[in-house]
């Protein structure tokens, strides 16, 4: 009797536990684990390479009017006191290099100190903006994946996902990022992603009176930018950082940092 009872209990116990185990397995399987496994198993589809955008700044052409900065700030509602692109004026003298950029040159440049003017050996304007690096330090350091490479090479910030920690602002070797005081998230030049997505040009390129700024697909060998990218003697800002920026400079003097 004792043995029969035990045997029955064993069967019942087995059935109850099998049902419970099945329920647990079903709950686990139904939800994300399946998705996870499916993602690992399924091969991602390979698409044909789209455009690879690049930006060329021609130092010899820039006249320092600052229209680009003004247009950028209007186009993107950049808060007062901040700029997404800016123009620096370099004046090289025997005593040193004088660099200024009053409010990012949003209103252009005023006259210079007479002493600096007298000593000037060489002077030029350097427009600066986000380099949209292929090896972007800002993307590497973002702890939440809020900054990313969009198709085409744009380095963008997801304002919904950004937590505003500011690591990317410190990581950028070009000082292209800032914390937007209104949205409290990282902000920077997007190469006017919204305009380019509709087939337009960035606002700064649009208004530049001397074509010192060029934007386009560097793979398109029929375009100026494609030819310059392939054959031109361009250089990067801070090449020692190995950020592989897609913002190239023509006629960049060695004094520029």
């Amino acid at each position, binding site marked *: 009797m004792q*043995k029969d009872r*035990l045997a029955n*209990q064993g069967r019942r116990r087995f059935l109850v*536990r099998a049902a419970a185990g099945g329920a*647990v*397995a079903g*709950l*686990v399987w139904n*939800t*994300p*684990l399946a*998705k996870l496994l499916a*993602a690992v198993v399924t091969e991602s589809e390979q698409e044909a390479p789209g455009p690879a955008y690049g930006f060329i700044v021609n130092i010899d*052409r820039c*006249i*320092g*009017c*600052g*229209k680009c900065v003004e*247009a950028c700030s*209007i*186009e*993107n509602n950049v808060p007062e006191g901040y700029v997404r692109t800016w123009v620096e*004026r*370099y*004046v090289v003298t025997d005593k040193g290099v004088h660099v200024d950029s009053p409010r990012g040159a949003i*209103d*252009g*440049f*005023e*006259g*210079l100190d007479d002493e*600096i*003017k007298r000593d000037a050996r060489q*002077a030029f*304007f350097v427009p600066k903006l986000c380099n949209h690096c292929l090896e972007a330090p800002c993307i590497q350091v973002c702890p939440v*994946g*809020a*900054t*990313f490479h*969009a*198709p085409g090479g*744009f380095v*963008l910030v*997801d*304002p*919904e*996902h950004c937590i505003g920690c500011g690591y990317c602002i410190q990581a950028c070797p070009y000082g292209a990022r800032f914390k937007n005081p209104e949205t409290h998230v990282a902000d920077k030049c997007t190469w006017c*992603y*919204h*305009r380019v*997505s*509709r087939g*337009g*040009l960035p*606002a700064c390129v*649009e*208004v530049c*009176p*001397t074509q010192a700024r060029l934007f386009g697909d560097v793979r398109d060998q029929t375009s100026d930018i494609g030819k310059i990218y392939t054959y031109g003697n361009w250089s990067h800002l801070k090449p020692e950082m190995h950020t592989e920026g897609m913002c190239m400079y023509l006629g960049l003097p060695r004094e520029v940092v």
Partner: protein
Amino acid sequence: MYRSLPRDLDLPGPPDGPERLATMTEQSSFFDFCKRGAEKGAQAAGFTCDPSPRSHVYRLVLLLAVAGWAFFWVKDWMVPESWDAAGWYRAAAAEELTDQHDTFGGNVSCSGCHREWMGEFNGGGHSALSCESCHGPFGAHANGLQRTAEAPVDSSRQACLRCHGTTPGRNTGFPRFNESFHRDSLRVPEDRSCMDCHAPHDPTYQTGWGF
């Protein structure tokens, strides 16, 4: 209690019935409290429930399973919907960023309608300029969102000198305002606008010596 369970089932097991309950009342942990409840329930249902010698393992496995399920459920809830669809970011963000309006329409958007100005402009010395450089942004107007009566221009000297003033760095090949020539040779009063003599769309053409 389970540690004291004999391996041979023929040997007398742990006490049953009231004796067992008596031993259990001595325990005070929460698990024992629950177990007692289950025991009572089993008795009410008409069968007794001997504890398995491996129940501590089952309990652990069940706990791990629940914890694992909870982990994936919470992860699924926390991770945005389009995450990792195109890379380690929220793929929907790229779409959302294109929602921004164009503030600048570009010269292409002007030339479609304003042909009367474009003819004069395209042949002139300012043909490389953007209309909106001087007239201000008209993207909303070009996209039909806003009607505009006029396109005002800042006709002050400063507006012209922003590009044509003489400052270090400005290429000497670029047409720069020769202040002494205008002031001393042409005797242009300080308060005259550049546009009084130079047509802004084609500044090489001079409208006449209006001073």
